[in-house]
């Protein structure tokens, strides 16, 4: 009776784990990296100029300009982040013409003030600063300053276009087109912002366009959608064939327990996918390599356990006792072997970036999941079937007790 209850509990546990993994997978899905989904990965580096040093403010400005351009290209789910002191990483999934996008993004910003006909009246290099602030009525504004030459020119411009609209352009896109309300010399204000955050956004863009910091494309990698799709399809096909061959080998060698090991490998695959989805990890080609390595380790854990059980069985123990002792002894081996690899992977994940890091992170997840499936799933599966005649048979686990008796 107690055995039956335990058995039910174990079956419920296995089913529960599978259900949770499938739920996580279907709820969150797997985020594919650019190398699998197609897209562009660009690393830009800000170049110091005579006028400006690279600091956090400059970087924030460059990021704003790039964000604006990416939005104009109409790209979905872009990732733009700074790395280190002077780098910006831009990731554009599913971009149609990556090379054109890279060029647009890497262009140096250029601020101009134009008349209603679109003719350039003043270039941005005459503007020395732009900040968000409030005017005397408490409205959010952008206050800007001009240098001496600029003051002289802008005085003329504002006199000429009094009461008309002039446009402030970043690259070829209009930021705003305020009406000239007074003659402006060295200091002016742009009104018409709903709040100070909106004004701050424009102030950053005006500053950036006025004293642009050129960026250099350090690295760019683009993968077309065709190649990404082929890569996924090939990976899945290869993974399935590989898994099937491994399962066949295990069944051939270990007989019925081999079927249990193959099932626990399949469960490992499902749990791994669920975990990756739940953690919202991004799957890349090097990440798949990490998974392959951890599949290897999951198989290995099963083999170590089975070999131990076989040894115990050959030394004359009953099947139940052999399973108990085999697992107990295999634990130490598997933990020591996996912890050593975990240490290596964690350090790699900490010290590196990009592809190597993607590899290390999936490897860490994979090792943890493989230990979980080996210790809990394989164990439960074997316990559930431990009374079955298929496990009780002399040949299971590749044991040779029966063979020796015949010799």
């Amino acid at each position, binding site marked *: 009776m107690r055995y039956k209850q335990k058995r039910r509990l174990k079956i419920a546990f296995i089913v529960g784990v599978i259900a949770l993994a499938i739920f996580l997978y279907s709820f969150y899905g797997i985020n594919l990296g650019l190398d699998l989904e197609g897209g562009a990965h660009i690393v830009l580096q800000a170049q110091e100029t005579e006028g400006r040093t690279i600091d956090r403010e400059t970087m924030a400005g460059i990021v704003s300009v790039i964000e604006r351009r990416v939005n104009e290209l109409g790209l979905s789910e872009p990732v733009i982040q700074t790395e280190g002191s002077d780098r910006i990483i831009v990731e554009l999934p599913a971009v149609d013409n990556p090379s054109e996008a890279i060029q647009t993004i890497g262009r140096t910003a250029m601020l101009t003030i134009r008349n209603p006909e679109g003719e350039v009246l003043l270039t941005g290099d005459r503007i020395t600063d732009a900040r968000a602030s409030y005017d005397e009525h408490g409205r959010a504004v952008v206050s800007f300053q001009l240098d001496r030459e600029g003051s002289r020119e802008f005085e003329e411009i504002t006199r000429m276009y009094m009461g008309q609209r002039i446009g402030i352009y970043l690259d070829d896109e209009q930021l705003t087109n305020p009406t000239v309300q007074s003659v402006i010399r060295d200091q002016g204000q742009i009104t018409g912002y709903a709040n100070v955050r909106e004004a701050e956004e424009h102030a950053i863009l005006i500053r950036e366009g006025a004293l642009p910091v050129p960026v250099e494309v350090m690295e760019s990698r683009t993968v077309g959608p065709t190649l990404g799709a082929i890569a996924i399809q090939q990976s899945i096909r290869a993974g399935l064939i590989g898994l099937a061959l491994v399962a066949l080998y295990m069944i051939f060698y270990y007989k019925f327990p081999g079927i249990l090991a193959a099932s626990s490998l399949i469960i490992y695959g499902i749990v791994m996918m669920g975990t990756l989805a739940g953690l919202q990890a991004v799957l890349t080609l090097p990440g798949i390599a990490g998974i392959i390595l951890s599949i290897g380790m999951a198989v290995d854990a099963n083999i170590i356990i089975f070999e131990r059980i076989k040894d115990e069985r050959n030394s004359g123990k009953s099947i139940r006792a052999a399973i108990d002792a085999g697992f107990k002894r295999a634990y130490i081996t598997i933990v020591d*072997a996996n912890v050593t690899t975990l240490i290596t992977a964690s350090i790699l994940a900490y010290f590196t970036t990009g592809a190597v890091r993607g590899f290390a992170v999936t490897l860490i997840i994979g090792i943890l999941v493989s230990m979980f499936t080996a210790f809990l799933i394989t164990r439960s599966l074997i316990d559930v079937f431990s009374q079955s005649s298929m496990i009780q048979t002399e040949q299971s686990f590749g044991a040779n007790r029966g063979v020796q008796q015949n010799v």
Partner: protein
Amino acid sequence: MFNFDSSKLDLMGKRKIWFIVGGAVVILSLLSLLVFGLNLGIDFAGGTIIEFSFAEEVTTEDVRGVLTEVGIAEDATLQTTTEDEYQGIIIRTGELAPDEIEQVENAVLAEFSGAEVLRTDMVGPTIGEELRRQALLALLVAGLAMVAYISFRFEPKFAITTLATLSHDVIFTVGIFALLGREINTAFVAALLTIVGYSINDTIVIFDRIRENMKLYRKMPFIEQANRAVVDTLPRSINTSMTTLVAILAIYFFGGAAIRTFMLALFIGLAVGTYSSIFVASPILVSWDIRSKAKAKS
């Protein structure tokens, strides 16, 4: 089924042979590295790769003609690729500016109808240098951390032996790649790391058995404890490497071009990793033990 008898199979007694083989392997690998050098891909050396697929038959001369026309990357190396899904041409050249890449793309797309840009990779020289530095630093720190853990769980000499074994595996794999002239890219580094992972795993499993035998058969000389451990874990070593190598071969043949170099490195590395955990790691431990005991006596 594999069943071995440690009283009949004396692997540790023949360790001189394994040392000669191991030494020769390391020396030949280093020689190959010295003579042929490494074929550093753009990930490390910097440069540009553009890969196209075509709907019609296009030769490298056709593409070279287009490059000459636009006057960009005229000295590029061109290579055809044939996959189940497409046939294409890879252009490899030095670092190109974004607008140059686009010009090349547009010219090729205009010349051949049904052409498609599969991928472009451009890596500046600084990135490659950083990658190399990062990978080396990470490997160094990982090595130290591993030595610390193994020293703590086993003994310092087990840790140092593991490091020596890993170096053997890495040097061999790199040597083979130098010999074959295969491209060294980020995937190759990931493969080396995987090999290191597997090799640690393999070595620790055997060391774990040696540790167990040291407790179980206290009176037995170390060489016998080690031999018994190696022979008793042989079925596991064979089964694990068989299953893994079978899976790797499947991925090598069916996984596509992008992953092939990676799989080749893995295949070589895993084979040598299994070999070395048996024929390099344990023999070193045995010789170490015999020497230190001889010293203690004298």
